[in-house]
């Protein structure tokens, strides 16, 4: 039996795990709530829907972007869990390479997150068609960036899952790294006029800023107010490069560490 056939088996059962676990449905529910909140609150609190379809598309992209966070919750226990809950004592005594197991887990997690992202963009598309009768072509780019961002977040989570002893600590540290540390450094770099294209939080912003940048987005919502520094829109190409690097480096590092890790 080839490693590729084993990989298919691992992906199948790992995907089954995501389908059977509540967290997939919780993230799905949160994605739907985010989309509904935008669709209900924007016209209620503002003066109807924004005139520009681009602004509304940018606002609605919060749903799929939120779905990518699901990657952290799906993958936090992917590697750490095998050691912490000792399921590795059964799994790792089978004639299958650790690399195959990790790749299979990664692809199954990615499939689950991609499913949520696709559902998010289906809602975005239907909503825009219903309200404006059109969908901007930038939605396709936003979708691509969102899938890339999901891959980058997943790789970072796999890295932390490979180095941490517990699933919970891997999940929390990844959340703190992406949502807090990366955002703080990102803001400081932006305020001081330094390049920030390599920050994961900046990269995630491109999912919305692809529709015309921060100005168009905030302008459509009534202006940017008195911001004490200049917003520089993230470069899509540099962000894509950065996300690709996070994806590749995080994934390769998690593979390397998982292969070295012992189940004592």
């Amino acid at each position, binding site marked *: *039996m080839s490693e590729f056939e084993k990989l298919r088996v691992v992906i199948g059962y790992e995907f*089954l795990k995501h389908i059977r676990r509540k967290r997939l449905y919780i993230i799905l529910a949160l994605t739907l709530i985010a989309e509904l909140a935008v669709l209900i609150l924007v016209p209620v609190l503002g003066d109807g829907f924004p005139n520009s379809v681009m602004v509304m598309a940018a606002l609605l992209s919060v749903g799929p972007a939120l779905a990518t966070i699901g990657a952290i919750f799906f993958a936090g226990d992917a590697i750490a869990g095998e050691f912490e809950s*000792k399921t590795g004592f*059964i799994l790792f*005594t*089978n004639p*299958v390479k650790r690399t195959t197991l990790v790749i299979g887990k990664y692809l199954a997690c990615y499939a689950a997150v991609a499913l949520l992202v696709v559902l998010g963009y289906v809602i975005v598309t239907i909503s825009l068609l219903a309200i404006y009768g059109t969908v901007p072509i930038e939605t396709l780019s936003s979708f691509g960036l969102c899938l890339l961002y999901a891959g980058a977040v997943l790789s970072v989570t796999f890295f932390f899952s490979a180095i941490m002893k517990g699933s919970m600590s891997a999940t929390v540290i990844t959340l703190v790294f992406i949502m807090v540390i990366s955002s703080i450094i990102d803001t400081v770099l932006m305020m001081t006029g330094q390049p920030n294209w390599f920050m994961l939080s900046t990269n995630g912003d491109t999912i919305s800023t692809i529709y015309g940048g921060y100005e168009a987005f905030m302008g459509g919502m009534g202006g940017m107010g008195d911001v004490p520094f200049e917003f520089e829109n993230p470069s899509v190409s540099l962000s894509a490069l950065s996300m690709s690097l996070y994806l590749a480096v995080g994934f390769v590092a998690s593979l390397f560490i998982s292969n070295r890790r*012992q189940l*004592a």
Partner: protein
Amino acid sequence: MSEAIVIENLTKYYNKFLALKGLSLTVPANENVGLLGPNGAGKSTTLKILCGLIRASSGTAYIDGVDVSEKPEKALAKIGAIVETPEFYSFLTPEETLGYLGRLRGMGGDELKRRIKEVIKQVRLEDWSKVKIEKFSRGMKQRLGLAQTLLHDPPVLILDEPGLGLDPRGVVEFRDIIEKAGKEKTIFFASHQLTEVSQICNQVAIIDHGKLLAYDSITALEKKYKSLEGAYLELTEAPLE
């Protein structure tokens, strides 16, 4: 296959703690060998090295002539193992778990279905075969653990305290299954239960502080030390270093 398991000068450090100190022993094919020793003697460490779960600091372990650290997949294809108390994915049923593990071992189709039914019946989990493992007790997981070792009919069984967590009936049933399997397989069996070991195995290796103290037939040890218990107590009484 004349030597199922060969352990050559195995040494294992956990940071500065020396768990195995140049351990060497050979388990001939189709023999049932018990591995005895007090807590921390190095039994589980030895079995984990054989199962590719940890790496030896030095020395080599072979299964059916295959170096476990050089070609782990080839070596693992020949064994069925229970190491520590087995844990399974709680979202799967025993049938699905065995299906997953069987497929990873290249089984499939009707053959896999038939074997799953057989081993589930063997460990008496028929009524629970479609119930998610999250509802299982420790003893039931232990039964499933034994089922997965037998599923692919491997020539070598490596068992680390397989009777742990079982009720008295379970212990007897387990012993019968392992005893039966041992008639045509090699069994390397770590346990604290001397009675269990003497019923299943014909030879025992007694280790302590990571060193081999004795390796002989139970009959020979009983002759020399009056009983297996006597041999165990006398050989392992040295103070902790």
